[in-house]
């Protein structure tokens, strides 16, 4: 494989990862505010279908995207509402929604199977695209991919560098304290759930109007993406940048899975395709094992230096979820 092909291939990875980046960052926002939206997988399918349908009927890509984001936001708000107002389990509601929206997409999307819809066009950035390496890698994409790049930085900046971002961390960490300091906890939770949902919804049209243009019902090949995004949110330790890195890693593995096919004749193709999932489990294991009680017990038996060393390593890997993730908060 020539270096040029490699470059193009990697650019393709960045392109293919864009929707996963959207979904992951969206979920990161939602969960940072203390709400788990488990409906991601179905939401992406429904928003992909709905936005494609709208785009086909109106021939307007923009309307399509708006539709997709609206769908995402609405589904997410159902989760938020049933948790905040009705005190129902977020996991339960989210899980039902993920299955229901999926079937809804298949049912309502039937008439749009295999139709030809509009597609987002590539938009190379004039001068920049000619820079060696950087150019083809980052500046020869469609607007969505650019937005995915921007979003990563934007999300990180918002969460860790702005005052509202600090409040966001606070309401997810300890809502009662945030409330005592004047934060409108539940209003904000609605807001960020909707925002996160909209970003998840954005992933739909990014597929159906760009990355995997078209709607093919059960064979669209989108089922499963949402779960990956959810896992990446944890893997990223609720940090948009780490989450995005995870998304790129996943897309990269997928790509390697096929470019390596000829070179690894004895490796079943399924192995490379499914590799991200064991890897996901492994990473979750690494970032969580530090919290396990038996580890402490075992460590206590070890000689002091080794013990302290391992402790330090474990604490370094550890990711700690927002303390009130999934816990509803009742304002007086």
């Amino acid at each position, binding site marked *: 494989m020539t270096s040029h092909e490699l470059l193009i291939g990697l650019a393709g990875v960045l392109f293919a990862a864009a929707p996963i980046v959207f979904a992951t960052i969206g979920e990161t926002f939602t969960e940072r505010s203390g709400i788990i939206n488990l409906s991601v997988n179905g939401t992406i399918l429904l928003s992909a279908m709905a936005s494609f349908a709208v785009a086909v009927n109106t021939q307007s890509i923009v309307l399509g995207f708006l539709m997709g984001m609206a769908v995402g936001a609405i589904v997410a708000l159902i989760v938020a509402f*049933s948790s905040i107002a*009705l005190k129902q389990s977020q996991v*339960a*509601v989210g*899980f039902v929604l993920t299955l229901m929206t999926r*079937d809804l997409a298949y*049912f309502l999307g*039937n008439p749009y199977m295999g139709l030809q819809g509009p597609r987002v066009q590539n938009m190379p950035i004039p001068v920049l695209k000619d820079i060696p390496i950087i150019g083809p890698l980052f500046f020869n994409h469609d607007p969505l991919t650019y937005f995915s790049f921007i979003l990563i930085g934007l999300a990180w900046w918002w969460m860790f560098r702005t005052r509202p971002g600090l409040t966001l961390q606070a309401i997810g960490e300890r809502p009662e304290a945030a409330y005592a300091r004047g934060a409108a906890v539940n209003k904000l939770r609605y807001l960020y759930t909707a925002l996160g949902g909209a970003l998840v919804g954005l992933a739909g049209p990014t597929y159906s109007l760009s990355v995997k243009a078209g709607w093919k019902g059960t064979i669209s090949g989108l089922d499963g993406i949402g779960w990956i995004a959810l896992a990446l949110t944890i893997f990223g330790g609720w940090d948009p940048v780490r989450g995005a890195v995870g998304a790129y890693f996943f897309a990269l593995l997928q790509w390697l899975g096929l470019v390596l096919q000829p070179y690894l004749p004895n490796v079943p193709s399924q192995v490379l395709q499914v590799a991200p999932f064991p890897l996901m*489990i492994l990473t979750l294991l690494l970032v969580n094992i530090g919290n396990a009680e038996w580890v402490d017990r075992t460590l206590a038996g070890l000689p002091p230096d080794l013990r302290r060393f391992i402790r330090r390593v474990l604490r370094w890997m550890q990711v700690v979820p927002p303390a009130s993730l999934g816990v509803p908060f009742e304002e007086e």
Partner: protein
Amino acid sequence: MKPRWENLAFATAAVFVALAFTSLVLVTAGASPFEAYWYMLKGSLGSWSKISDVLVAWVPLLLATAGLLITFAAGLWNIGVEGQIVLGGIFTTWVLRLLQDSTLSPAFILILAIAAGALGGALWAALAGVLKVFGGVNEIFGGLGLDFVAVALTLWLIFGPWKRPGIGSMSGTEPFPKELWLPTIPGSRLSLWALFIGLVSIAIVYFLLSGTYFGLKLKAVGKNPRAAYLLGIPTTRYLMMAFVLSGLFAGLAGAVQVTAVYHRLIPAISSGYGWLGLMVSMLINFQPAWAAPVTFFFAALNIGSIQLPIVLKLDSSLSGVLQGALVLSFLLMGGVRQRWLKKHQQEASDD
């Protein structure tokens, strides 16, 4: 006061909401809701053969649900159940392949194979359990990952080592000889043996969770593991047992799929019964007593929905929409109900 009629009222309201929503969806698709429901009913309970088909689908769903009720009792979201069903199917197939040419009696081979299926599911669940209990990996994502791995494993086996002579095909592995099928009622696909396994399993689970120390301790561990530990309950052991038992029933579901439904290993051997089982468990608010009827209803919806494409040219994923709508509206109505009760207590205490 009178919670009896209250519950009834809210339940009916929930059903009504769900039907209303689904009808709306149907109308959007330009179909007559009434017709759709009618044909689904006819297609599921309209004749004995239809009912027997529903029962065929009912058994594995019931088994998966039975297992899930145990993990739910322990406060665990065993989303790995899909993979556990698959592994049950794989292990069963494996044993059948090993022994089908042997001189052992078919009955004996079948028993071994089904036992192996249970074992397979239990092992796969144990894996998720170890990750959760000793690795702190949230069972939802551990299980989910293992689900994907299980599917990949199936495809690999079907297109690789276990592929049919010449062709690896989506139709799965070479079907097993008839004598290795669970005997069915003549003229139907329904196996009384499978039915028996299903009913016994749910009975066992009901008994375990309602009457025994094991069930109560499991509940305690589920609701507050740290307190349970201080009360002297071996928490980790109980969590692991929950996983293993749950996986065991899921594995049985897989075994039934292979020995009584498809008679071979197919790529989609789980038929999504794991997901459906999770839905049912939520719908019945994790009470074993309701598992049998509600799973039957869901199976009926699945079978009945086949009429939609045949008669009305509608996509049968509608059944999934209806099932989802039901569970969702029951959850939401549950919330509404609690608010309502709270408000009434408030008024009661004020005056």
